[in-house]
Each structure stands twice: as C-alpha cells, then as structure tokens.
C-alpha cells in the first residue's frame, strides 16, 4: 500500500461523459485528473508521473487517438495501468498494449471499479 494517494487520469473528449466518469471515481475515493484529448493527456502525464491509471476513450480529435495514447503511455510510463473505453471500436488483439483492459461505453459503475481493483489500482 502506498502512503501518498496516486491520481487516476480520465481522458475523454465528451465533457459530460468525462464529468460523469470523474464523479464516479471521486465517489470511490480516487483523486482524479482530466484531459479532453490525447495531446492534453500526455502533458498531464508528464507533469504527474505518479498517475496510477489512465482511463481513455478511443475516438477523440487531435494528433493521436486513445489507442495511440495507450501505446505511448505503456512505453513511457510502464507503471501506469491502462483502461480503454469506447462505444465504437472493439480493438483487435494486439492493438492494445499488454495488460491494458477494454471496456465498452456506457460504462457500468461496478465494472469500472472492479476493473481498477483487478489492476491493483486503489484510491
């Protein structure tokens, strides 16, 4: 168990859905950071290398989509757990980095929480 609380990062271009995900996680006791696209997310990750989990949508405007972000994060921040969430894509095998999880949108509260715990991410 770590003594310092480690934040999780929510990356989602839809402000409403981002807000809702953040509320859910905050209710669970997580400290939550946010980004509206992959480029912003990289900046947040650079400022907060202690982020314990990245929860990202796939289909977002910007130079990179959520799959690209997941790949990059797995390389640069190997300790950060990754959950990819989308209504459109069902990523084919191999397109997500090893250990990353995929959830379909809309996400059930319980599923989000269970998945985080399975990845050993706790508030």
């Amino acid at each position, binding site marked *: 168990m770590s003594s310092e609380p480690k934040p999780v990062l929510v990356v989602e271009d*839809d402000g*409403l*859905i981002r*807000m*809702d995900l953040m509320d859910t996680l905050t209710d669970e006791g997580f400290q939550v950071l946010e980004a509206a696209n992959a480029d912003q997310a990289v900046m947040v990750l650079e400022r907060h290398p202690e982020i314990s989990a990245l929860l990202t949508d796939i289909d977002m*405007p*910007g130079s990179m989509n959520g799959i690209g972000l997941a790949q990059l994060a797995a390389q640069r921040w190997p300790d950060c757990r990754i959950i990819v969430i989308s*209504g*459109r894509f069902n990523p084919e095998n191999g397109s997500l980095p090893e250990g990353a999880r995929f959830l379909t949108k809309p996400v059930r509260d319980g599923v989000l929480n269970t998945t985080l715990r399975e990845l050993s991410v706790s508030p």
Partner: protein
Amino acid sequence: MFCACAEITAKVATERAHKTQRERFAQVFELNQGGIAMLVGPEHVFDYANEEYYSMIGAGREIIGKTVAEAVSEVVRQGFIDILDNVYQTGETFVATALPIELNRGPAGEKQNRLIDLVYQAMRQDDGKVSGILVQARDVTELRAEEARKELLSHELGHRLKNQLAMVQAVASQTLRNAPDLATARKRLNERISVLSDAHDTILKGGRGASTVQQLVEQMLALHDDPAAPRIRSSGPDLKIGSRSSLSLSLILHELATNAVKYGALSVPQGNVELEWRVAGSARDRFEMTWIEHGGPPVAASEGSGSGTRLISAGLNGTADGRVAIDYDIKGLRCMVSADLQTFQKEH
C-alpha cells in the same frame, strides 16, 4: 378420304408452332436481367449472347464466332480460360459470387474493375458429351457498393447510439446527483431528455449533418420565449452543426434559458437576453456563441453550483479545443461557448 391439303396444313401449323416457341425462348434469353452467353466447342467460341451480356463486357464488341480468348482477350491472364477449360473437360459447374474482374468496357474500350456473379455450366449433346458452356453473369458492382455503404451506415448508427446512451447516462446521473428532491429530478430529467430528442429530430429531418445552429436556437425559443413578446434576441449566420455538437449545444441553450427564467434576467418582467453566434478567430476557424443577460436581479456566483451549470460547463461534445466561460457579472450572467469550427461541424 385422302386430303393432301389438310395434311400439309397440319405440318405447317406444327412448324409454325415450333417456330413460335423458339422465338419465345429466344425472347426469354434476351429479356433476362442477367447476362447470358453460349459457348461452343473446346475453344469456347461465342454462339450467342444477350443484350445484357454485351452491356456487361462493353457494348459494341464483336464476339459471335470468335473464341473467348480472342473476343474478350483481357480475361485470359485473369485465369478465366482455365476455368472454362476445366468446366468443359469435367462437366462440373463453376459458381462464383462477387468475383473481381477487369473488363475493357469503358466507352473507348478502357479498362474497368467490376464485380460479377458468375456461373459456367456444361451443355451436353444427346450422347451426354459436353458440347459447350452456358455462361450466366451479373454485374453486381453497384449492388455490392450499396451493401457496403449500408453496412457502414448501420455500424455508424450503432456507434452513435452507444454514444448517445452514454450521454443520457451522464445527464441522468448529473441530474440525480444535484437535485433537491425526487420530484424536481424527475421533471428536470424529463425536460433534458426531451431537449435531446428535439435536437435529434433536426438531425433526422435534415439528413446527415444538416442541422443548423439556427434550428437549435429556434427550438429553445419555442420552449422558453414568448413569440408575442420576445425577450431573447438572437442573431447569427446560417451555420451547419455536426450531430454530436448539436446535442450538447441544444442542452446548453436549454440550461441557460432555464437558469435565466428561474434566477436570471427572465425571472423579472424587464429583463432580456442577447444571444449571438459567429465564426471567430483570426483564421476564421472557431465557432463562438455568447449569451448575455440584461436587466435581471443582481447575480450571485453561488447560483453556479446546480446541475444546469455543470451541464453547461461540459461544453460542446465532439469538438477540439472546446471552451466554456461563465461570468457572473453583477449586471447579468454572461456565458461564452466556443470550439474549433471544423470539429464543431464534423459528422462523426
């Protein structure tokens, strides 16, 4: 009684009947919607082809009396002669669907890539020996393209539905989180989902990507303003809006108006609202909308804690660099919503 004339007449009548039947059969081939051709002999010489077959391989080509290899030479290297040889030798039928083929069928004989459904069947003479091949072919290029387009569209609709459910889930959860009581929550949620539904109507009515900002503003005015004594002055250019942005813009407009009626400029008789939208930015690459309230009671920032304000601050869905600024100016609330224009108008 022997009567030569009667016998001759009967023979002629039978012949006529046969002739009529042959002509009928010929017509059946001609009228067939698919391309039909008959090939004779081991070299596959064209004996007959109907209109549709000609139009499929390229109208005006001379083929009767020629072998397939001579008449439609471009199919040789595509392996079709080998298939015909095999059907001729084995008598086995060859069937293929959506087979890619290159045909010099353009107006000037230029090459085109098509997809055809194709059947080769051996035709046998009385002793059972194969004497030729019946070719039935149908150009399915356009049909397949249409099918692919429909499949893409249904995939796209499925995705859109998932996104909208996620949005409704978020709206419901925001509404319930911040509601003072269940009755208020029920009313608010009902209004919000109706607004999304109305916005969706403009998307459906106008067809793909044909909603405009004006349409969404009019829907909001119909709900919150009185046309006999209008208090919301709105103006802006005719601007197309993408379906994702249109759902969130309709919700933002609804929340601003609801807020104004409850606490803001529209809560007192003398108050009014100026609503304007425009294309902004030095590169004319941003959408900008401003909502400015006048003449209402003094504004307090504490009003900004409700679910309405949270829904407004969620911004425009599907846009890059979307921003929302709410200014609780003492003279009246001001809100500015802006986003990158290209993604604002994009169909996702």
